């Protein structure tokens, strides 16, 4: 007992020391400014008003000089306001909710797998082990073509899936925001693995009869992080075009990409990828300042493609039997960790409070100059953000990030529960996670959100949002009918 007490009291003392340090460094400018202001005020008071007037007259400033100075000040102010980047607001977003007829339970998935791969029972067992540890739940959905034994992925079925997902999400978004389709100035659609001609963005223009001078873009092949790449592109376009609306649609079409072979490294995506999509409305109009949900603060993109190992770690290729699939290499987690480090190094100075940055700098200098054996200081990102949306790429990704960033289980709850309820929906998973946080009533005005996505290439992209207004529950969205059942405990291994 006596031994525990000193430890406890010393840890408490340490906590207060740390808090004091943080408060001091974060508000250093205030702490420096106040004594200076007080000092000047005291000086002025001591001098008295007559002395002040005498000093003013001795400066001998005439009208021309006053006018020039004021013009200069006005010019500088104007230049500053004009060159300030336009604020980009996220007015609202909508996620696609698949109907119950697309539901796939574990047992059905395994039974179909067994029937489809009946010559390769070892691969079937491998799939079962993946599924048991995947973190997915029993309510994830696959498109109708994949429900067949064997799956029937025709182009028509793929287009059908794309139409259903994208149009439902956009219809839902239009209803929520009340804007008219003719007001959309910029359209960006990202879907990595399905890229027909005409493009999916042309499909949207055709369905909704968008204006002929619309700026439309279709991003394909950019992996699960393409959602944030679209955000980045939309932001840049909104700088170039004042007073505009940008509609961004992020999705992944499962139908044409179901791997029909039996190579183990390529069976993983079949187990994890599920149907999903999201439509997001961005605006730089000043009238949306008050009704928008979020404001985009930063987008940081990191590309590790120059490294060969990173480039090849998620690679689409043919297997020994000529069947096309996506090969996930064994060093995926290591590469993801390195990409994350790069991304953090760039985003850290932008978002971390001064106290954390100082500590990081001191440790960095110390390691370089004094002693390389010092433990590297991992900045505490929990001080920079209230909410984290980690792309639900798989249980391993979330576990890895939770460990690296030292996050609590509540911070990663949105990611884990999205993986459980919807599976890996690729680029749209970040939006399901954000929707979860809102549905739980945790999103308050001023909260900062960090969205992190990884994707083939290998890329790690981050976006930082600030909540513009407190979001009231109940929210309408994909979690509407099931939020009360969450969070659920996800066992390490589910017994099938």
């Amino acid at each position, binding site marked *: 007992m006596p031994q525990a007490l000193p430890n406890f009291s010393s840890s408490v003392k340490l906590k207060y020391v740390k808090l004091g340090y943080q408060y001091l460094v974060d508000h250093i400018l205030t702490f420096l400014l106040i004594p200076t202001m007080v000092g000047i005020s005291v000086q002025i008071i001591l001098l008295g008003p007559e002395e002040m007037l005498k000093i003013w007259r001795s400066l001998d400033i005439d009208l021309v000089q006053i006018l020039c100075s004021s013009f200069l000040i006005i010019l500088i102010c104007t230049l500053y306001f004009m060159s300030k980047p336009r604020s980009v607001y996220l007015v609202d977003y909508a996620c696609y909710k698949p109907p119950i007829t697309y539901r796939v339970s574990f047992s059905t998935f395994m039974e179909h797998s067994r029937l489809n791969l009946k010559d390769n029972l070892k691969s079937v067992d491998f799939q079962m082990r993946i599924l048991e540890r995947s973190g997915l739940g029993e*309510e994830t959905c696959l498109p*109708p073509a994949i429900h067949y*034994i064997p799956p029937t992925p025709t182009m028509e079925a793929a287009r059908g899936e794309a139409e259903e997902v994208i149009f439902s999400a956009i219809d839902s978004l239009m209803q929520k925001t009340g804007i008219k389709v003719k007001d959309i100035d910029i359209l960006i659609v990202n879907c990595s693995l399905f890229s027909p001609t005409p493009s999916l963005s042309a499909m949207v223009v055709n369905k909704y009869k968008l204006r002929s001078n619309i700026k439309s873009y279709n991003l394909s092949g950019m992996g699960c992080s393409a959602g944030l790449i679209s955000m980045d592109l939309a932001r840049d376009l909104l700088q170039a075009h004042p007073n505009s609306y940008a509609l961004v649609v992020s999705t992944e079409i499962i139908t044409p990409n179901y791997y029909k072979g039996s190579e183990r490294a390529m069976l993983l995506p079949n187990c994890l990828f599920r149907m999903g999509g999201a439509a997001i409305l961005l605006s730089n109009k000043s009238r949306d300042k008050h009704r928008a949900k979020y404001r985009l603060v930063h987008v940081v993109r990191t590309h590790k493609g120059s490294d060969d190992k990173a480039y090849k770690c998620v690679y689409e290729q043919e297997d020994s039997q000529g069947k096309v699939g996506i090969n996930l290499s064994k060093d995926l987690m290591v590469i993801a960790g390195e990409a994350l480090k790069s991304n953090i190094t760039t985003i850290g100075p932008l978002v971390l409070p001064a106290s954390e940055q100082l500590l990081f700098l001191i440790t960095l200098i110390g390691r370089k100059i004094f002693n390389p054996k010092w433990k590297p200081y991992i900045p505490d990102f929990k001080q920079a953000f209230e909410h984290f949306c980690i792309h639900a790429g798989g249980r391993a990704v979330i576990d890895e990030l939770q460990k690296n960033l030292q996050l609590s289980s509540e911070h990663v709850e949105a990611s884990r529960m999205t993986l459980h309820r919807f599976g890996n929906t690729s680029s749209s998973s970040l939006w399901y996670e954000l929707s979860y946080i809102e549905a739980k009533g945790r999103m308050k005005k001023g909260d900062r959100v960090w969205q992190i996505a990884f994707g083939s290439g290998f890329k790690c992209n981050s976006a930082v949002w600030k909540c513009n207004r407190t979001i009231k529950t109940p929210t309408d969205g994909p979690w509407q009918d099931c939020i009360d059942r969450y969070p659920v405990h996800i066992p390490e291994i589910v017994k099938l």
Partner: protein
Amino acid sequence: MVSSMAEGLIYDVKLSSVGPGNAIEPDMVHEPSDMDLAMKLHYLKGIYYFGKQAFEGLTTINIKEPLFILLNDFPVICGRFRRAESGRPYIKCNDCGVRFLEAKCEKTMDEWLEMIKENASLEKYLTPNQIIGPEIAFSPTVLLQYTKFKCGGMSVGLSWAHVLGDAFSAAEFLNLLGKVVAGEKPNRPIKTKSTNSESLLKDMEDPLSVKRAGPVGDNWITVNNSKMEAFSFSVNAAQLSHLQSKISSNATDFSPFEAISAVIWQCVAKIRESEPKVVTICKMMEQNKADGNNQLMSVVKAAYPIVEANPSELAELMKNSAFDQREKIENAIKKDNGVSDLIVYGANLTFVNLEEAKFYEFDYRGEKPVYVSYRVDGVGDEGAVFVLPGPPKNGGMTVMAILPENEVTELKLELKTEWFMD
């Protein structure tokens, strides 16, 4: 499933699965009763023929959707068999679902109905024919096949493992589907524990109504010595009343089932070398809840030669002198804790009374079936006869007989000449 002989007749077959729309609570398990396990080698096959209007304009997803809603109330059907450590089979309710087949037929429904009058075996192409096994954990117990005819009519083929329940439960399942299609919500309490009779009766030998099969292991189908063939014929209202009046003896009226069965019993006795002195009778219980195997099973023993007997005497025997076998059958299963393999239909010549079955109450979007046919796969060598209600507008009965193929032609002839039944 579709042999090369029928290639072209039935084509474009697609397989998928339909499960419950909502996730079930985990670790739910159903223990079949002893009576259920006695019937596990039999499979009910029902075919409901619908006219064009019932399924007009419906896509596959439209057809599947009500099943997703209905199956929320049938977790047992959606489960799969496992074996306990003792070897006794049980069902793990794991949301796996039923198998769903879509097919097309190159004939119109009228042409098809004509064809099956000659050759009832063709109907096996309208129902899925997968048995439980060789991997029981991955075998669906219920399969549905929707076959579209050239004229736009649709047949709904149901394959229902008898271990889940009798024909009355199978009919109830589809009738509830019809209700869901109409927009009603089925409100069915979920029963996971079947009731078993209590103690093990001491050292009884197997009842007359069953025969030990196999052991079949995990391939739940019996192997017959001779190939069994199905043939069906209808007895319209006029023929039925004529038959009943012919058979009725002083002041005893016989039901259509008793009359028809007595006649067939005698005809079969005439064409077989050794007369079937013992027959099994199965009929509905008074308080039928239509969930599970709740039929009354009894045997009738004739002490005299059948061929010379008066059919009304046979009908009399069936009506009044049946020995109840339920407890004995359950005992036979209990003896080795459900591991043994028995057959009931076909252990002796079996007559199954499905008169009261509500087959024609399956209403799909306001349309009732024009014709319903039921048969059983996995019938033993002695054969079985099923008496079902006929189409309501005819008012008569449909009779489905499953017998060794060499007996079929003779029986048909016998029925035609003696009783004017075609």
